[in-house]
């Protein structure tokens, strides 16, 4: 059955200004959140959703302040619970375009349970994870994505917590859409978010975000201009996995694992380079791509985007079927059903 589109279309063209709120943005100057906000404000006009039907939901954290800075309906909730609140918003009114924003701590520590179950259900809403690998709002404690061994306020001798890779978590929970973006590439982030909005089901976009106060340069090893092209690979559906300043490096599968190779060296040609398929049902390659780090470039772009009937669709189908064919048409019918008698 084809997916239905429940969110009404915009009756006019919007611009970024239509979504910019009059509230003062209170993030630290230079915080990566500013760029993510800008990307989101640029995304909304492209979704072609009616403005009144857009609803932002967030948890608690620096990143979760975002609803105040977007001129839509918004719910700044409690720590970790944004996915659960959004689930109710969308179930109560599937005509809403629901956008969840969470920090790494919000989404994967206190809210980890809600995140995996939201992803597993594949309800039709969009999640953005602002991953600065630290607790920003509470001033610098390690989070579930902080690098192993890192010294933070609560790990003065280095963390001994093995970090989560959000992509693995999403795919482990049977996620249907997972992308990774960089706060320093706002145009790419907008493109990714626009694609996320079009996905029927739960989309998760992890944005690597810099907290310049409590975890400055945590992503610098891959995001610095000087190294970015060699340390990251931007994946595009149906295209070979090529990266590097000279566009001469690529990824191939050597039968055991992915490896980075240079085209023209050791007999490697373009034919050896893997083609990216977002829609491969099996998570195997997508997992490997999401995990890449160290010797391999960090994958950016839409890593996984597969079709699977959304919870929203399944729910509305059941409702429709029962409303049309169910036994009771009104509460009076129900009250008088079964064994009743006069006294």
């Amino acid at each position: 059955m084809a997916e239905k589109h429940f969110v009404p279309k915009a009756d006019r063209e919007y611009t970024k200004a239509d979504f910019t709120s009059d509230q003062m943005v209170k993030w630290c100057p230079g915080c990566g959140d500013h760029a993510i906000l800008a990307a989101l404000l640029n995304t909304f006009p492209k979704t072609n959703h009616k403005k009144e039907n857009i609803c932002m939901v967030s948890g608690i954290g620096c990143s979760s302040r975002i609803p105040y800075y977007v001129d839509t309906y918004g719910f700044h909730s409690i720590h970790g619970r944004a996915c659960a609140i959004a689930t109710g918003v969308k179930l109560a009114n599937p005509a809403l375009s629901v956008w969840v924003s969470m920090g790494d701590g919000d989404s994967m520590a206190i809210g980890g349970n809600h995140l995996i179950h939201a992803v597993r259900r594949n309800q039709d809403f969009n999640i953005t994870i602002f991953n600065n690998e630290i607790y920003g709002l509470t001033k610098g404690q390690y989070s579930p994505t902080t690098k192993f061994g890192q010294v933070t306020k609560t790990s003065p001798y280095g963390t001994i917590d093995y970090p989560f890779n959000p992509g693995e978590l999403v795919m482990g929970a049977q996620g249907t859409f997972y992308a990774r973006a960089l706060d320093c590439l706002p145009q790419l982030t907008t493109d990714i978010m626009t694609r996320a909005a079009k996905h029927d089901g739960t989309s998760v976009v992890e944005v690597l975000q810099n907290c310049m106060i409590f975890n400055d340069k945590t992503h610098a090893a891959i995001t610095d201009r000087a190294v970015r092209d060699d340390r990251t690979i931007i994946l595009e559906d149906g295209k070979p996995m090529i990266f590097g300043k000279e566009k001469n490096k690529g990824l191939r599968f050597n039968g055991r694992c992915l490896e980075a190779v240079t085209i023209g060296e050791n007999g490697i040609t373009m034919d050896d380079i893997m083609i990216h398929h977002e829609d491969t049902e099996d998570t195997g390659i997508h997992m490997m791509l999401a995990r890449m780090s160290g010797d391999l470039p960090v994958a950016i772009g839409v890593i996984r985007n597969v079709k699977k009937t959304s919870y929203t669709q399944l729910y509305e189908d059941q409702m429709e079927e029962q409303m049309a064919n169910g036994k009771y048409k009104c509460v009076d019918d129900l009250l008088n059903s079964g064994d009743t008698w006069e006294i």
Partner: protein
Amino acid sequence: MATEQITKIDDIVVRFAGDSGDGMQLSGTLFSDASALTGNDIATFPDYPAEIRAPHNTIAGVSGYQVHVGNHIYSSGDKCDILVAMNPASLKSNLKWAKKGATIIVDIDTFTDEALEKAGYTENDHPFTDEMERAYTIIKAPVTSFTQRIGNEQGADKKTADRCRNMFALGIIFYATHKKLDQTYAYLERKFAKKPEVVKLNKAVLTEGYEYADKLEVMHSHIFEIAQADSMPKGRYRNITGNVATAWGLLAASEKSGRRLFLGSYPITPATDVMVELAKHKSLGARVFQAEDEIAGVCSAIGASYAGALACTSTSGPGLSLKSEALGLAVMVELPLVVVDVQRGGPSTGLPTKTEQSDLNQALYGRNGEAPLVVMAASSSANCFYWAYNAAKVALEHMTPVILLTDGYLGNGSQLFRIPKMADMPDIKPRLATPNDPNYRPFRRDPVTFAREWALPGMEGLRHRVGGLEKCPDGPLSTDPENHALMVHNRQEKVNRVANYIPDQEVTGDPDAELLVVGWGGTSGALTLAVEEMNKEGKKVAYTHFNYICPLPKNTGDILKKYKKIVVCELNNGQFAGYLRTQFPECPMTQYNKIMGLPFEVGELKAEFERLLAK
């Protein structure tokens, strides 16, 4: 039946006890349904273990179902007139619930040495001592062997036949209560419509039980004809459990208010059946979501409320604890929300299948900050319907979370329910904002109720943000000290003003009473009966029962001040008494508490009231 001798009685209490797998809940339900259908008033009380099937023949595995039948029934009764005990363990653990002189029907085939030992009987403590035989009428029915013989005749295997043993016992009970079997035949035909052989077997065993009783000399002098329910208001009736009534009350409120019903919940005994029931009613628009935990249950409901639904979450004590933080959020964002807490024995996992009223403090105070919300309590299985409806009405009209307290006794117990017409139910008018209202402000309040307006995502021209951070009346965040004081005051005042919309508290019983009995929630059956009986005996006792807990009815203080002696009775260690004392420190109150996971008994209440009167 030439020699039979029928005794007319006002009411009778029958208790079915057996191993968890023996089908006692079903026998009890069939007996109560048949009684209701033949014109008796009823109340039931299932008393079952937390384990689904504890080891066979042990005390831990005993499951009970008590049915009280008569002309006007308030509670499921203290002790039983007839006890059915399907094995030694059920006799051992349930004998204390039998009145002196009660009729006890046992399946004598199960009283093997091994089963007796498992039940904890010893050579010196045998079930059928002379003393026992003198104190009770004991009917040693060969239930298992008779049932197996019929099973054999019909070609059923032993296991299938054994599953019908409860029907044999039920047949005896129908004989003893002078009832016909047609009701139950019809039920079996409906229930097993696709399995005619099962219908045939069950009917045969039921009939055999009835005929077995007819052939027993002793039974002839033990036939009771139970008075019809004549003192009840005329109307159409049905049997209903408290949890189903709660679910239906929410459905009714949704239909009346025009707001979609949303329930976000996580299974927990004894509240699960509210969700189970609502999950059936998609055709009536019920949107049920089984969440990953209680936090997600309440949070999804808060999200649904933001989006415009009549949003509810149902749970029991431990689940309510998990919801605390989110309830604070609901208070802060001032959205309508109904939280049903079917209380059970606590703390922690406590006594999951037993009843208690010990979540009151949690409901009243269990949140950080100054976080007032409305608390109300149902007082009978049937009136759970009206209290759920009312909780929704108050939530929607006053823009506040409401906690509705019921309990395991009300939730699992059943009662006759006079079926209302939806047209007669009071109106519910949600406080929806008007699209494109240029003056809309998120925390603009109605000057009379102090309720804010509900602007729903999707409405044009009302975009706004809500959240857990303190806001100023116009909507934006504010940490201004004066503003915080004002908002705290306003949220409290809104809850206080609900008192302007609730009826006066009533007092029943002796107008010149010396002693005022105070109760709240699920204990009203036993309390009403205790006070009524004492009034009949000429004792000066009055009674007031609370359903509105926070806020209290406005005349509460006036009532309390009138009495020299007040006793607050509740199934906890005095939580309501403590609450009343803080509000009315000038009124001296004693308290009567029971914390055994069991409902009050009329007898123990009367003894306590007599003691207080004599003091």
